[in-house]
């Protein structure tokens, strides 16, 4: 019998949400981030590719997308940090019958900062779902689904997934999404219409390395204070745009490889970005057996390796696209998990690292949140699917 541990965060604590191939784990620390306690595994036996925290409108709501080999994927939420979870029956993400599609996986969960009732999730096969009631019900974004490119998007190694959702922080009409392989698409009219936003991003696995679409974008990040500047980790290539994706420039200078998946931006400095380069698409491990996070502090003009506390020998590690993140404390914590089940944390923007856990199942996603307000409280905010004992 699996022993599921619970955590009891207080306001100001840091909580790490760690999705793995066999369940979700929660790690809690005070703001000092010196001592961590582990919670979970929640949804034991289920792969959890996406997790999120909704702290808007006074909520303290965890979201997770557990995926059963047998029973499929659902969105589930918890108002008490995992003691109870909604079953998700009302909130299940389902393709309408006329699409002929069925949900394979939920890859990303995101909320709008400027509208506490709006949430999004990106799924496989590549599509965007929206909720206008804080996750109680979901509907397919038809504008993107009906895009003429969609039937010609091709699956990458992880499947045909919409894995990145970037709502504009202040303009509800604008949003970017990224699809592997499709590329980056943007809407400027609230999701009714979409157009490509990946000019300059190459697809070197195609005869034409600059096709209209079909780029294998792995991750895109941006800072809320400067939304037109974005950084992109590609299937070969690191890029920056200063015009919200109208044009991208290659910024892979000083990295051992421009192949990789994970990318995260500093919470307080829009010029600081973290990546974990991998050797190649044919050997998706960190180069030279050295586990190095690379950081730029000058907007990707240069990159420096961060190694203090990370294994620098015989470390054949892989960090997946959503397994790297930052917290929002002044000394920016940085966190990542590996496919070999290690979880690392840095309390100082990557200066020094320590392992928080080893022996977890393969890590699929890591998200960090600083618990706000007056601490957890059930039932606040907009109605959501009811909670049940797991």
């Amino acid at each position, binding site marked *: 019998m699996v022993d599921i541990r619970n955590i009891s965060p207080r306001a100001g604590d840091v909580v790490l949400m760690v999705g793995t*191939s066999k369940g979700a784990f929660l790690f809690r620390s005070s703001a000092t981030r010196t001592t961590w306690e582990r919670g979970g595994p929640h949804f034991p*036996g289920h792969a959890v590719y996406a997790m999120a925290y909704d702290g808007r409108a006074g909520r303290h709501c965890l979201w997770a997308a557990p995926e*059963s*080999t*047998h*029973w*499929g994927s*659902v969105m589930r939420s918890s108002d008490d940090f995992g003691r109870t979870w909604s*079953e998700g*029956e009302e909130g*299940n993400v*389902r*393709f*309408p*019958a006329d*699409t*002929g*599609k*069925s*949900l394979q996986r939920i890859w990303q969960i995101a909320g709008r900062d400027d509208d506490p009732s709006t949430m999004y999730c990106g799924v496989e096969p590549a599509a965007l779902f929206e909720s206008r009631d804080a996750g109680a019900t979901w509907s397919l974004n038809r504008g993107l689904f009906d895009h003429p490119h969609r039937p010609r998007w091709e699956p990458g190694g992880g499947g045909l997934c919409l894995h990145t959702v970037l709502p504009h922080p202040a303009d509800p009409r604008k949003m970017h999404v990224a699809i592997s392989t499709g590329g980056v698409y943007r809407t400027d009219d609230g999701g009714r219409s979409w157009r490509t936003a990946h000019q300059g991003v190459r697809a070197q696995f195609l005869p034409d390395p600059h096709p209209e679409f079909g780029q294998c974008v792995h991750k895109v990040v941006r800072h809320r204070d400067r939304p037109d500047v974005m950084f992109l980790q590609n299937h070969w290539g690191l890029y920056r745009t200063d015009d919200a994706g109208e044009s991208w420039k290659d910024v892979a200078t000083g990295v051992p490889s421009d192949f990789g998946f994970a990318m995260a931006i500093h919470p307080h400095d829009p010029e600081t970005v973290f990546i974990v380069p991998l050797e190649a698409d044919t050997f998706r491990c960190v180069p030279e057996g050295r586990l190095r996070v690379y950081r730029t502090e000058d907007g990707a003009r240069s990159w420096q390796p961060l190694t203090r506390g990370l294994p620098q020998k015989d470390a054949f590690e892989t960090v997946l696209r959503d397994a790297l993140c930052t917290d929002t404390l002044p000394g920016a914590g940085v966190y990542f998990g590996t496919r070999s089940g290690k979880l690392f944390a840095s309390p100082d923007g990557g200066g020094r690292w320590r392992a928080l856990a080893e022996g977890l199942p393969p890590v699929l996603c890591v998200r960090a949140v600083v618990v706000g307000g007056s601490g957890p409280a059930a039932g606040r905010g907009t109605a959501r699917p009811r909670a*049940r004992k797991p």
Partner: protein
Amino acid sequence: MRVTFVLPGPLHALAGGRAEVVVDSAAATVGQALAALWDAHPALRGRVMTEDGRVRPHVNVFVGHRSVRFTGGLDTAVSDGAEVAILPAVSGG
């Protein structure tokens, strides 16, 4: 026409905590009987079936001791008193 559905543990919570559900309907096939089960417990449908109306690939449906995959799929006939078991396939990692 009474059909008894036997549910696996992970689905009990979606059927009011029950391991067995008896459905009384005019169903002549297992597909029709399942539709009556969804009417009684709508949350079960999304776990057993894909959106496009197929039994999930790693789920098996048995009428008696025979998998419907080999007896006509959802068109497999059911008779009064039939027992239909929904079981997870041997898969996973």
